[in-house]
């Protein structure tokens, strides 16, 4: 009986290690998509597996990928609420001065930075479906499961987010001309 129990524990540890090796990168990317910071994303990645180890046997999780993705997203959002400044929307409306874009390279950098600000400034219900949809590890169905909304809602929100970004970027470019 004891030997069976030890074997089961060993099997559980092997499963857990396999889950880490398979899904750690996806967990990191989800955390990074929410937090935008490498160190924070790695902290969240470690926290995800630590919590999973404490709370649940990995062998009992039917869909490990979906489970881990959801935990990662929740932890990242929770951490983001604590650390992220709330005035990003205002920052996104600020137009960088034309004097900074002296040549094409600078112009590209400026545009990329502005776009990043725009994405960060999106409201969470639009930003999360948009950013998670870009992760190749997650299908639309899995994104919907993570966010606890329907697939149709994921598509419509991502579409709406892109539309807003397009409009704001167009307006910014017109102002620069």
């Amino acid at each position: 009986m004891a030997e069976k129990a030890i074997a089961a524990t060993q099997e559980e540890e092997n499963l857990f290690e396999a889950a880490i090796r398979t899904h750690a990168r996806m967990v990191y990317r989800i955390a990074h998509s929410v937090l935008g910071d490498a160190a924070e994303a790695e902290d969240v990645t470690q926290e995800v597996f630590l919590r999973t180890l404490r709370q649940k046997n990995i062998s009992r999780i039917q869909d490990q990928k979906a489970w881990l993705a959801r935990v990662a997203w929740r932890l990242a959002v929770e951490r983001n609420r604590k650390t992220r400044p709330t005035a990003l929307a205002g920052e996104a409306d600020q137009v960088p001065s034309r004097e900074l874009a002296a040549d094409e390279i600078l112009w590209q950098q400026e545009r990329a930075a502005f776009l990043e600000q725009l994405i960060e400034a999106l409201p969470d219900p639009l930003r999360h479906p948009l950013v998670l949809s870009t992760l190749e590890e997650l299908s639309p169905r899995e994104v919907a499961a993570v966010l606890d909304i329907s697939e149709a809602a994921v598509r419509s929100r991502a579409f709406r987010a892109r539309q807003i970004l397009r409009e704001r970027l167009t307006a910014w470019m017109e102002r620069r001309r």
Partner: protein
Amino acid sequence: MREHQEIDQWLDESLSRYADAEPRPGLESRVLARLAAEQPAPRTISWWALAFGTAALAGLLLLWLRPAFQPVPAPGMRWTAELPPVPLSLQHTTSPTAAVRSERPRGIRVALAQQGAEAKRECFPSPSPLSEQEKMLARFVENFPRKAALVAQTQTELYQQDQKEMAGPWPAREND
């Protein structure tokens, strides 16, 4: 239209930064190391404790049940149906144990006696086959019953005479 395509392309480029975010090399190893460091005492220890506990419990149970087991005679061993009669002179009728025994309730003594009789009955006849000497004796009794009876009577008389001599006063030593 061309501007529209450009804007979409820029958007995709910006979003791809989220998708292509790469952790520092060795993320999996760092996660495993952290888990190993923060994991409480390994579960195997508790399983070992469980195993030892179970073994100890089984041992105690065996010790508790052991008196209930009936001894099984070895193949070569014989049970004696009766002990030879003890001479009256050697019996301690006034011993303290006898007094204590006589104070026991009669019902218990009867029950114990019945229990002993049953135990004896279970042991007789002998579970092992007769020895060669016993077989020879049985053949002798069967073939020469008179002689056997005579020998038995002589043996009994000799035994009784011995008993009488043992019970009587011992002769004084010549040196005394």
